[in-house]
């Protein structure tokens, strides 16, 4: 056994060594891409667990995926903003309302960033939030079931990129618009009237501390710029939020050039406690706005979508002291607060240095009114007055920074494809490693929290050519795992990812694993169409609707013979999985269905709608291999012409006597 493990490790090491040699002839790939003991550091033997859950955004697949670290193994894809035919998300009757918006049913989105809930600035393992960048929304995933429980649309937003960053105790999730847009009654305007008519909005979404339910607490009406990323203050800076901005040029065409004119854009500092004071004093204005709020209920296994019609807004140009601008070079992307909350790191993606701002100095500058002027009625703090210092010549194109528990920062550099480690106090560059290639965000376990777990940094790269076996023009996206436990960063592992991961967070397994739900209890199933026991299986007609209350257990469906359905009927298969054991889902699929299959977890009820388009006998079956007799888990439904007099009937295990003419 022991030699076997050693043999496997040796094999992995040999493969790594091979990669090193192979990479040797590629441009930019240095010979020492991985160290000799890299294989043992990422090898998780069969039957053992990874140390961290890695919650990764899916980018253009609209989903979240769950990996293990340090192995890089993919465990699960959680459908969030995109339909998922694999399990029926967005296709089943119960989940369709989750994707409802003020624009109707939107089956896809672009999920960029993850925020794991925190208490006192530390990971608490309750929820993961994700943002929809295209049709602006925020989602909340429950880390007990790894299921999307809530999706909230954001009015007055043109693209929710600066999101879903959270405050220290998950009081708020923020949502800042990437596109400023004309809002309110005056939306049909010439695009060239950008400066006059376009506004940016930042939403503060409150999160119920026990149930997690989200609500737009207020929106800040801000000048027409683009918001990119954000981080909350923590510790001494709790009560503040920091947003990076670009396009302060207020360009509306060829932004590549026209939004890159100024030497400095801004970091926008928001005093949200001050905003709360104004709201308490009745200074908020209720404004008409249409947006959907979709909630999944775990006891009925059903979601509902409610259309909301107003939102509370504050105008910081009028209500002073809510927001301040700090100049920041140049088109900043990352805007990251260190674990103490004192330092705010701006990463100008066109800059060749990294400015680090001091919260204490910023507060003094505000008190002493050290302003260089105003932008759209908002005070602009003098750059030097808020500056702790600059990291000189760190690399090209700093993008995003996270931290370890020892006062070090790790910044990704897109243009120069590297991670640079530097000391937050001294601003001294300590180490640099190449990434393959063009790193976007990076992620240290607990890196954005008050208590980083450290150990690793993961690079999420945008380009992977020559790193994996080619698969035509479209290549896998790549993550790279580095050990940061020593003075020097060491590349340990490349692993492919699904979709396009923009950002991820990692959390120690012990904060999630003990709470993971294994089954839904049948006794607690409140689905209106549940059949809680085979005796409750039945078929009912309501006008043109036929409702099949079906049960599934290894290995039969009840009823499995259904007759009396007519052309023109809508048939609803409400399937209850009667299993109460972990890892025994059943599936349900029927020939010709225009939607998808459904996967039903133990104790759950899920509904697939089916509209037959021709007469005949149609097979249905279980799609999830459940037992030795899984292949026998099947049935038939007979569809007769409209107006036929075939009676509605259903059975399982009933052998009809053909001599009596039954079934004719």
């Amino acid at each position: 056994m022991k030699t076997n493990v050693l043999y496997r490790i040796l094999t992995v090491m040999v493969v790594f060594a091979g990669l090193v040699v192979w990479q040797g002839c590629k441009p930019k790939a240095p010979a020492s891409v991985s160290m000799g003991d890299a294989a043992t550091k990422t090898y998780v033997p069969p039957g053992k667990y990874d140390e961290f859950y890695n919650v990764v955004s899916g980018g253009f697949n609209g989903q979240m995926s769950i990996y293990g670290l340090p192995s890089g193994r993919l465990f699960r894809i959680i459908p969030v903003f995109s339909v998922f035919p694999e399990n029926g998300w967005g296709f089943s009757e119960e989940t369709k309302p989750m994707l409802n918006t003020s624009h109707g049913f939107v089956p896809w989105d672009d999920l960029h960033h993850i925020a794991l809930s925190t208490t006192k600035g530390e990971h608490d393992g309750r929820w993961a939030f994700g943002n929809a960048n295209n049709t602006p929304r925020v989602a909340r995933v429950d880390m007990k079931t790894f299921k999307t429980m809530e999706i909230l649309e954001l009015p007055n937003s043109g693209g929710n990129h600066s999101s879903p960053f959270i405050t220290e105790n998950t009081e708020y999730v923020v949502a800042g618009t990437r596109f400023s847009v004309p809002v309110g009654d005056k939306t049909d305007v010439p695009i060239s009237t950008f400066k006059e008519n376009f506004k940016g909005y930042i939403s503060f979404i409150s999160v119920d501390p026990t149930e997690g339910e989200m609500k737009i607490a207020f929106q800040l009406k801000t000048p027409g710029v683009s918001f990119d990323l954000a981080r909350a203050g923590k510790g001494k800076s709790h009560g503040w939020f920091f947003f990076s901005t670009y396009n302060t040029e207020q360009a509306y065409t060829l932004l590549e050039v026209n939004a890159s004119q100024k030497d400095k854009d801004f970091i926008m500092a928001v005093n949200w406690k001050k905003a709360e004071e104004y709201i308490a004093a009745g200074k908020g204005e209720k404004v008409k706005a249409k947006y959907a709020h979709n909630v999944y209920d775990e006891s009925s296994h059903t979601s509902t979508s409610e259309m909301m019609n107003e939102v509370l807004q504050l105008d910081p140009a009028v209500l002073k002291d809510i927001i301040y601008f700090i100049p920041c070079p140049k088109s900043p992307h990352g805007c990251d607060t260190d674990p103490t909350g004192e330092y705010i790191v701006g990463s100008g993606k066109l800059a060749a240095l990294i400015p680090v701002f001091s919260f204490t100095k910023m507060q003094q500058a505000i008190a002493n009114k050290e302003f260089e002027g105003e932008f759209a009625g908002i005070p602009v703090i003098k750059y030097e007055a808020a500056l702790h210092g600059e990291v000189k010549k760190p690399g090209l194109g700093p993008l995003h920074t996270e931290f370890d528990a020892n006062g070090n920062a790790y910044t990704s550099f897109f243009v120069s494809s590297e991670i640079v480690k530097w000391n937050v106090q001294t601003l001294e560059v300590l180490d640099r490693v190449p990434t393959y290639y063009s790193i976007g965000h990076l992620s240290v376990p607990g890196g954005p929290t008050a208590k980083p777990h450290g150990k690793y940094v993961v690079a999420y790269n945008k380009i992977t050519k020559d790193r994996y076996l080619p698969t035509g023009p479209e290549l896998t996206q790549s993550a790279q795992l580095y050990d940061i436990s020593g003075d020097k960063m060491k590349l340990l592992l490349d692993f492919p990812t699904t979709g396009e991961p923009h950002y991820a967070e990692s959390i120690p397994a012990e904060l999630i694993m003990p709470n993971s739900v294994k089954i839904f209890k049948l006794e607690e199933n409140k689905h209106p169409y549940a059949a809680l026991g085979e005796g409750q299986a039945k078929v009912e007609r309501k006008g043109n609707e036929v409702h099949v209350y079906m049960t599934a257990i290894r290995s039969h469906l009840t009823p499995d013979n259904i007759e009396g359905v007519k052309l023109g009927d809508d048939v609803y298969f409400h399937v209850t999985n009667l299993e109460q054991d972990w890892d025994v889902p059943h599936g349900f699929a029927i020939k010709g269905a225009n939607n998808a299959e459904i996967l039903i977890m133990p104790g759950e009820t899920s509904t697939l709608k089916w509209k037959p388009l021709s007469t005949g006998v149609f097979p249905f079956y279980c799609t999830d291999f459940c037992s030795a007799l899984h292949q026998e888990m099947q049935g038939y439904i007979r569809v007769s012409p409209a107006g036929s007099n075939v009676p509605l009937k259903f059975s399982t295990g009933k052998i009809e006597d053909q001599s009596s003419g039954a079934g004719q």
Partner: protein
Amino acid sequence: MKYLVATVVIALMFACAPDKPVNTEEKPDINQSAVEAITDPTKGIGAVKNVTLNTPLEQDRVKRGLSIYEMKCLSCHKLDETRIVGPGWKDITKKRKPEWIMNMITNVDVMLEQDPEAQKLLELCLMRMPNQNMSIGDARDVLEFMRQNDGEK
């Protein structure tokens, strides 16, 4: 050796995590249970060591047992002697000890691994009886319902 140390550290980290899936090299409680099984093999393997049966039947248990049967058992077990997925329940309380029945319900995976009578049933039905997440109290209620089904008053 380094990887061994790492493995031990990770193993220690999870030593307190509940409901850890069983690794091949460590199966908790089974040996202990097996010893007890040898002492009275007809009682099966599991937490249920002794059951006291009362006459007349405890009617509240019978009622609860029936509703559990309808929700979690009826799909596979008929109340007469016919076998569908699993054996019919007629006369089960005359053939099996009450402890065996309750251990089969509450500890089915271990029973199917180790109990010779349970293994014979698996060979007959070729379908592992599922764990239906029932407490010992639930199993006791179902047992009372089985006694009624077998004609006890």
